[in-house]
């Protein structure tokens, strides 16, 4: 279900992957140097104290020439990545749509679109991480181009750390669950904000008997994701259009509910509603798990400042708030027992030939290692 790429289109992504790697392995280290050698001393000379928090560090760094150039290059790289993906995908959007239609028709019962779903304001106000048209724009009938672009470009953005099929987080989650609950067979599994199902399919492979459902608001992602799953022999996986704040499922009807890199793309109000829905939907004895970048608590102000870049310059408006939210407390407020709530780490599981997170310097938000917060019901 992938777009066909020419030599130059592949070369463009090769450049972007190498550029991102160079930025995280080489260039980013200079920011700490600039901060320690000239920015912090200058601030101390002016104010008599160190910058008090990440906001003051950002204010101080914003005038620094190295940080300015790094930021401008990083932003340019994101924009070039979007253009590269769109020029690859939009020229063949009809062919991709036709291919998706064909595959989707073969397993029509497991693609459940709902015209009545509207895009919530927290999504429609700003195109997520600088994707023109975000996840949901449709230029032709039954369009899948938003998803094809996301799929094609993510490998370059993550430089292989999420695996060949970009499913490292899903595979890591399945691996974690099998160790957390050895021998357990969840009957029904729900992935919130599944997108095109990168991290949904590994759960279907790990639990062959389970009914596996991914929900998302964006129809192009679901159409493409379902077609991709059918093409991979996983037509039993259900892709359902729904808003995770108001899910069309019965109380206590899922054994395992999870999300990967989803919560930071929702507003705080939506986050509370979503976790409320998880509490309602989780069956007795069930488990929930949410993968995210680590929270800011316990980090140095400087690291917080670096990680916060995406919030300000990459259209991630809820990034800072989510990383300041104490998810265990929120889960407790939603009715989970304090003793059943936990925090852990999930490593991406990727093919042997792919790079591993340990071998790379983490690029503040793009490495294959996640913080996870969960609870047992």
């Amino acid at each position: 279900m992938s777009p066909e790429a020419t030599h130059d289109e592949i070369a463009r992504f090769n450049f972007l992957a190498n550029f991102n790697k160079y930025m995280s392995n080489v260039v980013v280290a200079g920011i700490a140097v600039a901060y320690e050698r000239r920015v912090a001393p200058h601030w101390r000379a002016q104010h008599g104290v160190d910058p008090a928090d990440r906001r003051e560090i950002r204010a101080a760094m914003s005038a620094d020439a190295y940080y300015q150039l790094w930021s401008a290059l990083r932003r340019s790289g994101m924009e070039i990545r979007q253009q590269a993906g769109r020029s690859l995908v939009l020229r063949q959007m009809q062919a991709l749509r036709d291919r998706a239609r064909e595959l989707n028709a073969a397993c029509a019962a497991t693609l459940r679109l709902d015209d009545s779903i509207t895009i919530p304001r927290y999504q429609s106000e700003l195109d997520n991480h600088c994707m023109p048209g975000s996840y949901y724009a449709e230029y032709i009938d039954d369009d899948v181009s938003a998803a094809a672009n996301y799929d094609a470009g993510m490998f370059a953005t993550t430089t292989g750390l999420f695996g060949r099929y970009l499913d490292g987080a899903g595979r890591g989650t399945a691996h974690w669950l099998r160790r957390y609950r050895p021998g357990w067979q969840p009957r029904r599994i729900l992935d919130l904000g599944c997108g095109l199902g990168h991290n949904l399919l590994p759960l279907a492979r790990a639990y062959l008997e389970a009914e596996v459902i991914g929900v998302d608001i964006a129809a192009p992602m679901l159409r493409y994701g379902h077609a991709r799953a059918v093409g991979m022999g996983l037509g039993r996986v259900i892709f359902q259009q729904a808003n995770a704040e108001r899910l069309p499922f019965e109380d206590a009807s899922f054994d395992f509910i999870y999300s990967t890199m989803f919560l930071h793309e929702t507003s705080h109000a939506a986050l509370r509603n979503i976790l409320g829905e998880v509490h309602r939907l989780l069956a007795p004895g069930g488990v929930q798990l949410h993968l995210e970048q680590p929270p800011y608590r316990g980090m140095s102000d400087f690291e917080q400042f670096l990680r916060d870049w995406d919030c300000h310059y990459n259209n991630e408006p809820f990034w800072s708030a989510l990383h300041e939210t104490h998810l265990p407390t929120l889960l407790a407020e939603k009715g989970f027992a304090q003793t059943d709530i936990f925090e852990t780490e999930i490593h991406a599981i990727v093919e042997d030939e792919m790079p591993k997170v340990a071998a790379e310097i983490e690029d503040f938000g793009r490495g294959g290692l996640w913080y996870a917060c969960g609870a047992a019901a």
Partner: protein
Amino acid sequence: MNKPDLQKLINAAASGKRPHFFSDHDVDRLLSIVWAMAAELAVTRERLDTVERLLAKRALLDRAAIDAYRPDGAAAAERGQWQMEYLSRLLRVLQQEVDALQREVR
């Protein structure tokens, strides 16, 4: 959808304000062009590398023939089309500026 529309769609900006990092905003704009150009240079270099390796493998590379080559009409038209798309890629930031101005007028 005709060709110019597709190019416009490809080069569209994400909603939300584009940040600027330099005190002179023109530097941000210039860097956006320069960096797109850097990407395209890398693409060209990779293509050239592919060509050279393929030719060398088949013992077909004759460098004098490269300098002597003159494209025919169809080849020249294809190259011209490539140049147009190349330029729209490099100058994306200008298109987006005009797009934004037009939205404001409406």
